[in-house]
Protein backbone atom coordinates (compact mmCIF):
# COMPACT_ATOMS: atom_id res chain seq x y z
CA UNK A 1 0.00 0.00 0.00
CA UNK A 2 2.18 2.77 1.24
CA UNK A 3 5.70 2.99 2.50
CA UNK A 4 6.18 6.19 4.45
CA UNK A 5 3.88 7.61 7.05
CA UNK A 6 3.03 10.57 4.84
CA UNK A 7 2.12 8.28 1.98
CA UNK A 8 0.09 6.11 4.33
CA UNK A 9 -1.88 9.09 5.56
CA UNK A 10 -2.40 10.49 2.08
CA UNK A 11 -3.39 7.10 0.85
CA UNK A 12 -6.02 6.79 3.57
CA UNK A 13 -7.45 10.17 2.73
CA UNK A 14 -7.82 9.49 -0.97
CA UNK A 15 -11.13 8.39 -2.40
CA UNK A 16 -11.71 5.50 -4.72
CA UNK A 17 -12.41 7.60 -7.78
CA UNK A 18 -14.00 6.61 -11.05
CA UNK A 19 -13.59 9.42 -13.52
CA UNK A 20 -12.73 10.68 -16.91
CA UNK A 21 -9.04 11.46 -17.35
CA UNK A 22 -8.14 14.27 -19.63
CA UNK A 23 -6.08 13.48 -22.73
CA UNK A 24 -2.38 13.77 -22.08
CA UNK A 25 -2.56 12.51 -18.53
CA UNK A 26 0.29 10.26 -17.51
CA UNK A 27 -0.98 6.85 -16.38
CA UNK A 28 0.37 4.99 -13.35
CA UNK A 29 2.46 2.72 -15.53
CA UNK A 30 4.12 5.75 -17.17
CA UNK A 31 2.29 5.79 -20.49
CA UNK A 32 0.13 8.72 -21.56
CA UNK A 33 -3.63 8.60 -22.22
CA UNK A 34 -4.17 9.65 -25.81
CA UNK A 35 -7.82 10.44 -25.36
CA UNK A 36 -10.33 11.04 -22.60
CA UNK A 37 -11.19 7.82 -20.83
CA UNK A 38 -13.26 6.60 -17.84
CA UNK A 39 -11.01 4.77 -15.39
CA UNK A 40 -10.56 3.98 -11.72
CA UNK A 41 -7.70 6.17 -10.57
CA UNK A 42 -4.87 4.16 -9.08
CA UNK A 43 -2.23 6.77 -8.41
CA UNK A 44 -2.06 10.51 -7.66
CA UNK A 45 -1.26 11.64 -11.21
CA UNK A 46 -4.35 9.87 -12.56
CA UNK A 47 -6.41 11.58 -9.90
CA UNK A 48 -4.97 14.90 -10.91
CA UNK A 49 -5.87 14.23 -14.50
CA UNK A 50 -9.55 14.00 -13.69
CA UNK A 51 -11.71 17.06 -13.93
CA UNK A 52 -15.27 17.50 -12.75
CA UNK A 53 -16.40 14.21 -14.22
CA UNK A 54 -15.21 11.94 -11.48
CA UNK A 55 -17.18 10.04 -8.88
CA UNK A 56 -15.99 9.11 -5.44
CA UNK A 57 -17.34 5.60 -5.64
CA UNK A 58 -16.54 4.73 -2.04
CA UNK A 59 -18.27 7.81 -0.59
CA UNK A 60 -21.33 7.32 -2.75
CA UNK A 61 -21.40 3.61 -1.99
CA UNK A 62 -21.22 4.06 1.77
CA UNK A 63 -23.62 6.96 1.92
CA UNK A 64 -26.03 4.94 -0.21
CA UNK A 65 -25.63 1.82 1.92
CA UNK A 66 -26.07 3.74 5.16
CA UNK A 67 -29.02 5.70 3.81
CA UNK A 68 -30.59 2.44 2.70
CA UNK A 69 -29.90 1.01 6.17
CA UNK A 70 -31.65 4.01 7.67
CA UNK A 71 -34.66 3.57 5.38
CA UNK A 72 -34.68 -0.17 6.01
CA UNK A 73 -34.70 0.21 9.80
CA UNK A 74 -37.31 2.92 9.85
CA UNK A 75 -39.51 1.36 7.19
CA UNK A 76 -39.49 -1.88 9.19
CA UNK A 77 -40.50 0.06 12.26
CA UNK A 78 -43.15 1.93 10.29
CA UNK A 79 -44.56 -1.37 9.11
CA UNK A 80 -44.69 -2.75 12.64
CA UNK A 81 -45.93 0.48 14.18
CA UNK A 82 -49.22 0.08 15.97
CA UNK A 83 -51.07 1.65 18.86
CA UNK A 84 -50.44 -1.27 21.23
CA UNK A 85 -47.43 -2.08 23.38
CA UNK A 86 -44.33 -1.46 21.19
CA UNK A 87 -41.49 -3.93 20.80
CA UNK A 88 -38.04 -2.86 21.96
CA UNK A 89 -36.92 -2.22 18.40
CA UNK A 90 -39.98 -0.10 17.70
CA UNK A 91 -39.38 1.71 20.95
CA UNK A 92 -35.87 2.77 19.93
CA UNK A 93 -37.06 3.96 16.53
CA UNK A 94 -39.90 5.86 18.16
CA UNK A 95 -37.44 7.58 20.48
CA UNK A 96 -35.64 8.96 17.42
CA UNK A 97 -38.93 9.91 15.82
CA UNK A 98 -40.19 11.73 18.88
CA UNK A 99 -36.86 13.46 19.40
CA UNK A 100 -36.96 14.88 15.87
CA UNK A 101 -40.67 15.55 16.00
CA UNK A 102 -40.32 17.57 19.19
CA UNK A 103 -37.47 19.59 17.74
CA UNK A 104 -39.52 20.29 14.63
CA UNK A 105 -42.62 21.25 16.60
CA UNK A 106 -40.61 23.56 18.85
CA UNK A 107 -38.77 25.30 16.05
CA UNK A 108 -40.81 25.15 12.89
CA UNK A 109 -43.96 27.25 12.99
CA UNK A 110 -45.33 26.87 9.48
CA UNK A 111 -46.97 23.71 8.18
CA UNK A 112 -44.88 21.38 6.06
CA UNK A 113 -45.02 17.68 5.27
CA UNK A 114 -41.37 17.68 4.28
CA UNK A 115 -39.65 19.15 7.29
CA UNK A 116 -40.12 16.20 9.69
CA UNK A 117 -38.91 13.47 7.32
CA UNK A 118 -36.13 15.77 6.15
CA UNK A 119 -34.82 16.33 9.64
CA UNK A 120 -35.13 12.66 10.55
CA UNK A 121 -33.27 11.62 7.41
CA UNK A 122 -30.56 14.23 7.87
CA UNK A 123 -30.04 13.36 11.51
CA UNK A 124 -30.07 9.59 11.31
CA UNK A 125 -28.25 9.34 8.01
CA UNK A 126 -25.45 11.64 9.13
CA UNK A 127 -25.36 9.84 12.46
CA UNK A 128 -24.75 6.57 10.64
CA UNK A 129 -22.22 8.13 8.24
CA UNK A 130 -20.36 9.63 11.18
CA UNK A 131 -20.59 6.47 13.22
CA UNK A 132 -18.77 4.21 10.77
CA UNK A 133 -15.61 6.17 11.42
CA UNK A 134 -15.50 4.32 14.74
CA UNK A 135 -14.50 1.22 12.79
CA UNK A 136 -10.69 0.96 13.02
CA UNK A 137 -9.08 2.75 10.08
CA UNK A 138 -7.55 -0.21 8.30
CA UNK A 139 -10.35 -2.76 8.46
CA UNK A 140 -12.39 -1.68 5.48
CA UNK A 141 -9.60 -0.22 3.31
CA UNK A 142 -7.64 -3.41 4.02
CA UNK A 143 -10.51 -5.54 2.83
CA UNK A 144 -10.92 -3.30 -0.22
CA UNK A 145 -7.23 -3.57 -0.97
CA UNK A 146 -7.42 -7.31 -0.70
CA UNK A 147 -10.33 -7.17 -3.17
CA UNK A 148 -8.14 -5.22 -5.58
CA UNK A 149 -9.16 -1.62 -4.97
CA UNK A 150 -6.23 0.73 -4.58
CA UNK A 151 -7.89 3.58 -2.69
CA UNK A 152 -10.76 3.29 -0.28
CA UNK A 153 -12.06 5.97 2.06
CA UNK A 154 -15.04 4.54 3.83
CA UNK A 155 -16.28 7.50 5.88
CA UNK A 156 -18.48 9.47 3.48
CA UNK A 157 -18.61 12.62 5.65
CA UNK A 158 -14.84 12.98 5.35
CA UNK A 159 -15.51 13.81 1.71
CA UNK A 160 -16.50 17.49 1.26
CA UNK A 161 -18.45 16.52 -1.85
CA UNK A 162 -20.85 14.62 0.36
CA UNK A 163 -21.30 17.20 3.09
CA UNK A 164 -21.45 20.19 0.74
CA UNK A 165 -23.91 18.55 -1.62
CA UNK A 166 -26.16 17.90 1.35
CA UNK A 167 -25.82 21.44 2.64
CA UNK A 168 -26.41 22.90 -0.82
CA UNK A 169 -29.51 20.74 -1.08
CA UNK A 170 -30.53 22.48 2.12
CA UNK A 171 -29.82 25.83 0.43
CA UNK A 172 -32.12 24.79 -2.40
CA UNK A 173 -34.78 23.93 0.18
CA UNK A 174 -34.24 27.26 1.96
CA UNK A 175 -34.95 29.09 -1.29
CA UNK A 176 -37.90 26.82 -2.07
CA UNK A 177 -39.44 27.28 1.40
CA UNK A 178 -38.87 31.00 1.24
CA UNK A 179 -40.65 31.27 -2.10
CA UNK A 180 -43.42 28.91 -1.06
CA UNK A 181 -44.24 30.79 2.14
CA UNK A 182 -43.50 34.37 1.13
CA UNK A 183 -43.87 34.29 -2.64
CA UNK A 184 -41.28 35.19 -5.24
CA UNK A 185 -41.76 38.85 -4.41
CA UNK A 186 -41.25 38.21 -0.72
CA UNK A 187 -38.11 36.21 -1.41
CA UNK A 188 -36.62 38.87 -3.67
CA UNK A 189 -37.51 41.66 -1.28
CA UNK A 190 -35.92 39.70 1.58
CA UNK A 191 -32.72 39.71 -0.46
CA UNK A 192 -32.83 43.33 -1.59
CA UNK A 193 -34.74 45.44 0.94
CA UNK A 194 -32.86 44.41 4.07
CA UNK A 195 -30.98 45.20 6.18
CA UNK A 196 -30.73 48.80 4.93
CA UNK A 197 -33.98 50.59 4.28
CA UNK A 198 -34.82 54.14 3.40
CA UNK A 199 -37.97 56.13 2.78
CA UNK A 200 -36.15 58.11 0.15
CA UNK A 201 -36.77 56.29 -3.14
CA UNK A 202 -33.43 57.23 -4.70
CA UNK A 203 -31.52 56.20 -1.62
CA UNK A 204 -33.44 52.95 -1.53
CA UNK A 205 -32.45 52.19 -5.13
CA UNK A 206 -28.83 52.82 -4.25
CA UNK A 207 -29.14 50.57 -1.21
CA UNK A 208 -30.57 47.62 -3.16
CA UNK A 209 -27.27 46.34 -4.59
CA UNK A 210 -25.59 46.69 -1.22
CA UNK A 211 -28.38 44.74 0.41
CA UNK A 212 -28.24 42.14 -2.33
CA UNK A 213 -24.54 41.52 -1.86
CA UNK A 214 -24.89 41.27 1.91
CA UNK A 215 -27.92 39.00 1.80
CA UNK A 216 -26.56 36.71 -0.90
CA UNK A 217 -23.34 36.29 1.06
CA UNK A 218 -25.42 35.58 4.15
CA UNK A 219 -27.55 33.09 2.28
CA UNK A 220 -24.56 31.27 0.81
CA UNK A 221 -22.71 31.30 4.12
CA UNK A 222 -25.41 29.08 5.61
CA UNK A 223 -24.87 25.94 3.49
CA UNK A 224 -21.13 26.52 3.21
CA UNK A 225 -20.72 26.69 6.97
CA UNK A 226 -23.14 23.80 7.42
CA UNK A 227 -21.27 21.52 5.05
CA UNK A 228 -17.78 22.59 6.03
CA UNK A 229 -18.48 22.29 9.73
CA UNK A 230 -19.48 18.65 9.35
CA UNK A 231 -16.63 17.95 6.95
CA UNK A 232 -14.09 19.74 9.10
CA UNK A 233 -15.04 18.01 12.32
CA UNK A 234 -15.17 14.60 10.77
CA UNK A 235 -12.00 15.11 8.75
CA UNK A 236 -10.11 16.20 11.85
CA UNK A 237 -11.39 13.21 13.76
CA UNK A 238 -10.55 10.78 11.01
CA UNK A 239 -7.15 12.40 10.56
CA UNK A 240 -6.26 11.69 14.18
CA UNK A 241 -7.30 8.07 13.76
CA UNK A 242 -5.18 7.74 10.61
CA UNK A 243 -2.29 9.56 12.27
CA UNK A 244 -2.48 7.21 15.25
CA UNK A 245 -2.46 4.26 12.89
CA UNK A 246 0.46 5.69 10.90
CA UNK A 247 2.62 6.57 13.90
CA UNK A 248 1.88 3.70 16.26
CA UNK A 249 0.93 0.82 14.03
CA UNK A 250 -0.38 -2.04 16.16
CA UNK A 251 -0.37 0.14 19.27
CA UNK A 252 -2.68 2.70 17.72
CA UNK A 253 -5.44 1.76 20.18
CA UNK A 254 -3.54 3.69 22.88
CA UNK A 255 -4.58 6.87 21.07
CA UNK A 256 -7.45 5.59 18.96
CA UNK A 257 -9.47 4.12 21.80
CA UNK A 258 -9.79 7.32 23.90
CA UNK A 259 -10.29 9.29 20.70
CA UNK A 260 -13.10 6.93 19.69
CA UNK A 261 -14.71 7.35 23.11
CA UNK A 262 -14.50 11.10 22.63
CA UNK A 263 -16.06 10.63 19.22
CA UNK A 264 -19.04 8.90 20.74
CA UNK A 265 -19.90 12.46 21.75
CA UNK A 266 -18.81 14.15 18.55
CA UNK A 267 -20.64 11.79 16.21
CA UNK A 268 -24.20 12.42 17.46
CA UNK A 269 -23.40 16.04 18.23
CA UNK A 270 -22.36 16.82 14.65
CA UNK A 271 -25.41 14.99 13.30
CA UNK A 272 -27.57 16.95 15.70
CA UNK A 273 -25.98 20.27 14.74
CA UNK A 274 -26.48 19.61 11.06
CA UNK A 275 -30.10 18.64 11.64
CA UNK A 276 -30.95 21.51 13.98
CA UNK A 277 -29.31 24.12 11.74
CA UNK A 278 -31.18 22.76 8.74
CA UNK A 279 -34.35 23.06 10.77
CA UNK A 280 -33.55 26.58 11.94
CA UNK A 281 -32.62 27.79 8.46
CA UNK A 282 -35.81 26.35 7.01
CA UNK A 283 -38.00 27.78 9.74
CA UNK A 284 -36.36 31.16 9.22
CA UNK A 285 -37.00 30.85 5.49
CA UNK A 286 -40.66 29.92 5.98
CA UNK A 287 -41.37 32.54 8.64
CA UNK A 288 -43.12 35.73 7.64
CA UNK A 289 -40.66 38.63 7.53
CA UNK A 290 -40.94 40.99 10.47
CA UNK A 291 -43.59 43.61 10.05
CA UNK A 292 -45.01 41.94 6.96
CA UNK A 293 -48.77 42.01 6.62
CA UNK A 294 -50.52 38.67 6.71
Amino acid at each position, binding site marked *: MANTQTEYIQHHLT*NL*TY*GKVAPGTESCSGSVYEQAQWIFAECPQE*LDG*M*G*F*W*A*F*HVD*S*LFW*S*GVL*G*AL*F*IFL*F*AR*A*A*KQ*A*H*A*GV*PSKFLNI*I*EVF*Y*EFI*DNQVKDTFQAKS*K*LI*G*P*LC*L*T*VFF*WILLMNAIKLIPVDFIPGAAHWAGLEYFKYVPVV*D*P*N*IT*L*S*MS*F*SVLFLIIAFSIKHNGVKGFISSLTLQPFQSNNLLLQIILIPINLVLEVVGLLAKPVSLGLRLFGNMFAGEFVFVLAAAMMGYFQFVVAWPWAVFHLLVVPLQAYIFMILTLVYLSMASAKPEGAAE
Partner: protein
Amino acid sequence: MNMNATVIGQVIWFALFVWFCMKIVWPFIGKALEERRQAIAEGLNAADRAKRDLAAAEEKVSASLDEAKAQSAEIIEAANRRASQIIEEAQAKAVAEGERLAAKAKAEIEQEINSAREQLRQEVSALAIAGAEQILKAEVDKGAHKQLLDQLAAEL
Protein backbone atom coordinates in the same frame (compact mmCIF):
# COMPACT_ATOMS: atom_id res chain seq x y z
CA MET B 1 -10.83 19.86 -1.77
CA ASN B 2 -11.56 18.41 -5.14
CA MET B 3 -15.20 18.97 -5.90
CA ASN B 4 -16.51 16.75 -8.64
CA ALA B 5 -19.50 14.86 -9.95
CA THR B 6 -19.84 13.00 -6.63
CA VAL B 7 -22.03 15.95 -5.70
CA ILE B 8 -24.62 14.87 -8.27
CA GLY B 9 -24.75 11.36 -6.88
CA GLN B 10 -25.04 12.55 -3.32
CA VAL B 11 -27.83 15.00 -4.16
CA ILE B 12 -29.72 12.14 -5.78
CA TRP B 13 -29.20 9.95 -2.69
CA PHE B 14 -30.31 12.79 -0.47
CA ALA B 15 -33.50 13.45 -2.42
CA LEU B 16 -34.22 9.74 -2.64
CA PHE B 17 -33.82 9.02 1.06
CA VAL B 18 -35.79 12.07 2.13
CA TRP B 19 -38.54 11.10 -0.27
CA PHE B 20 -38.58 7.51 1.02
CA CYS B 21 -38.66 8.77 4.56
CA MET B 22 -41.54 11.07 3.74
CA LYS B 23 -43.54 8.39 1.95
CA ILE B 24 -42.98 5.16 3.85
CA VAL B 25 -41.64 6.08 7.29
CA TRP B 26 -42.73 9.34 8.82
CA PRO B 27 -46.53 9.24 8.45
CA PHE B 28 -46.87 5.68 9.71
CA ILE B 29 -44.80 6.09 12.85
CA GLY B 30 -46.52 9.39 13.54
CA LYS B 31 -49.94 7.82 13.11
CA ALA B 32 -49.11 4.91 15.38
CA LEU B 33 -47.79 7.23 18.07
CA GLU B 34 -50.85 9.43 17.85
CA GLU B 35 -53.11 6.40 18.09
CA ARG B 36 -51.20 5.10 21.06
CA ARG B 37 -51.38 8.49 22.71
CA GLN B 38 -55.14 8.45 22.28
CA ALA B 39 -55.43 4.87 23.52
CA ILE B 40 -53.47 5.80 26.63
CA ALA B 41 -55.60 8.88 27.16
CA GLU B 42 -58.73 6.78 26.83
CA GLY B 43 -57.33 4.20 29.23
CA LEU B 44 -56.53 6.86 31.81
CA ASN B 45 -59.98 8.35 31.37
CA ALA B 46 -61.57 4.95 31.82
CA ALA B 47 -59.52 4.34 34.94
CA ASP B 48 -60.62 7.69 36.31
CA ARG B 49 -64.20 6.95 35.49
CA ALA B 50 -63.95 3.53 37.12
CA LYS B 51 -62.49 5.13 40.24
CA ARG B 52 -65.35 7.61 40.38
CA ASP B 53 -67.86 4.83 39.77
CA LEU B 54 -66.33 2.78 42.54
CA ALA B 55 -66.53 5.70 44.97
CA ALA B 56 -70.15 6.29 44.00
CA ALA B 57 -70.96 2.62 44.42
CA GLU B 58 -69.29 2.53 47.83
CA GLU B 59 -71.30 5.53 48.89
CA LYS B 60 -74.46 3.88 47.67
CA VAL B 61 -73.61 0.69 49.51
CA SER B 62 -73.01 2.49 52.79
CA ALA B 63 -76.21 4.47 52.34
CA SER B 64 -78.28 1.38 51.73
CA LEU B 65 -76.53 -0.33 54.63
CA ASP B 66 -77.53 2.55 56.90
CA GLU B 67 -81.05 2.39 55.60
CA ALA B 68 -81.21 -1.33 56.19
CA LYS B 69 -79.91 -0.87 59.72
CA ALA B 70 -82.51 1.78 60.44
CA GLN B 71 -85.20 -0.39 58.96
CA SER B 72 -84.24 -3.42 60.96
CA ALA B 73 -84.09 -1.37 64.15
CA GLU B 74 -87.56 -0.09 63.39
CA ILE B 75 -88.81 -3.60 62.75
CA ILE B 76 -87.32 -4.86 65.98
CA GLU B 77 -88.88 -2.02 67.90
CA ALA B 78 -92.23 -2.64 66.31
CA ALA B 79 -91.93 -6.31 67.11
CA ASN B 80 -91.07 -5.51 70.71
CA ARG B 81 -94.00 -3.19 70.95
CA ARG B 82 -96.28 -5.76 69.43
CA ALA B 83 -95.02 -8.43 71.79
CA SER B 84 -95.64 -6.34 74.87
CA GLN B 85 -98.99 -5.38 73.50
CA ILE B 86 -99.85 -9.02 72.98
CA ILE B 87 -98.75 -9.82 76.51
CA GLU B 88 -100.85 -7.02 77.88
CA GLU B 89 -103.81 -8.10 75.84
CA ALA B 90 -103.38 -11.67 76.99
CA GLN B 91 -103.14 -10.53 80.58
CA ALA B 92 -106.28 -8.45 80.25
CA LYS B 93 -108.04 -11.29 78.53
CA ALA B 94 -106.99 -13.70 81.25
CA VAL B 95 -108.17 -11.37 83.97
CA ALA B 96 -111.47 -10.84 82.20
CA GLU B 97 -111.88 -14.57 81.68
CA GLY B 98 -111.12 -15.22 85.32
CA GLU B 99 -113.63 -12.65 86.37
CA ARG B 100 -116.16 -14.02 83.97
CA LEU B 101 -115.59 -17.56 85.28
CA ALA B 102 -115.84 -16.39 88.83
CA ALA B 103 -119.06 -14.52 88.08
CA LYS B 104 -120.45 -17.53 86.31
CA ALA B 105 -119.57 -19.75 89.26
CA LYS B 106 -121.10 -17.26 91.62
CA ALA B 107 -124.30 -17.14 89.59
CA GLU B 108 -124.44 -20.90 89.46
CA ILE B 109 -123.96 -21.04 93.19
CA GLU B 110 -126.68 -18.46 93.63
CA GLN B 111 -128.97 -20.45 91.41
CA GLU B 112 -128.18 -23.62 93.32
CA ILE B 113 -128.89 -21.84 96.54
CA ASN B 114 -132.19 -20.50 95.20
CA SER B 115 -133.33 -23.83 93.85
CA ALA B 116 -132.29 -25.56 97.06
CA ARG B 117 -134.16 -22.92 98.99
CA GLU B 118 -137.25 -23.40 96.78
CA GLN B 119 -137.06 -27.12 97.19
CA LEU B 120 -136.59 -26.75 100.88
CA ARG B 121 -139.53 -24.37 101.06
CA GLN B 122 -141.77 -26.80 99.23
CA GLU B 123 -140.62 -29.65 101.34
CA VAL B 124 -141.12 -27.54 104.42
CA SER B 125 -144.62 -26.56 103.34
CA ALA B 126 -145.46 -30.21 102.67
CA LEU B 127 -144.01 -31.09 106.01
CA ALA B 128 -145.98 -28.25 107.62
CA ILE B 129 -149.17 -29.44 106.03
CA ALA B 130 -148.51 -32.95 107.14
CA GLY B 131 -147.63 -31.63 110.55
CA ALA B 132 -150.75 -29.50 110.66
CA GLU B 133 -152.84 -32.48 109.56
CA GLN B 134 -151.30 -34.44 112.29
CA ILE B 135 -151.88 -31.68 114.78
CA LEU B 136 -155.33 -30.80 113.78
CA LYS B 137 -156.27 -34.29 113.09
CA ALA B 138 -158.81 -32.93 111.02
CA GLU B 139 -159.23 -32.73 107.42
CA VAL B 140 -158.02 -29.59 106.20
CA ASP B 141 -159.18 -28.62 102.86
CA LYS B 142 -156.06 -28.29 100.83
CA GLY B 143 -157.84 -26.14 98.43
CA ALA B 144 -159.32 -23.84 100.99
CA HIS B 145 -156.08 -23.41 102.82
CA LYS B 146 -153.76 -23.40 99.90
CA GLN B 147 -153.37 -19.66 100.01
CA LEU B 148 -152.55 -19.78 103.62
CA LEU B 149 -150.06 -22.55 103.15
CA ASP B 150 -148.31 -20.83 100.25
CA GLN B 151 -148.01 -17.71 102.31
CA LEU B 152 -146.47 -19.74 105.04
CA ALA B 153 -144.08 -21.43 102.68
CA ALA B 154 -143.06 -18.09 101.23
CA GLU B 155 -142.25 -16.81 104.63
CA LEU B 156 -139.84 -19.67 105.25
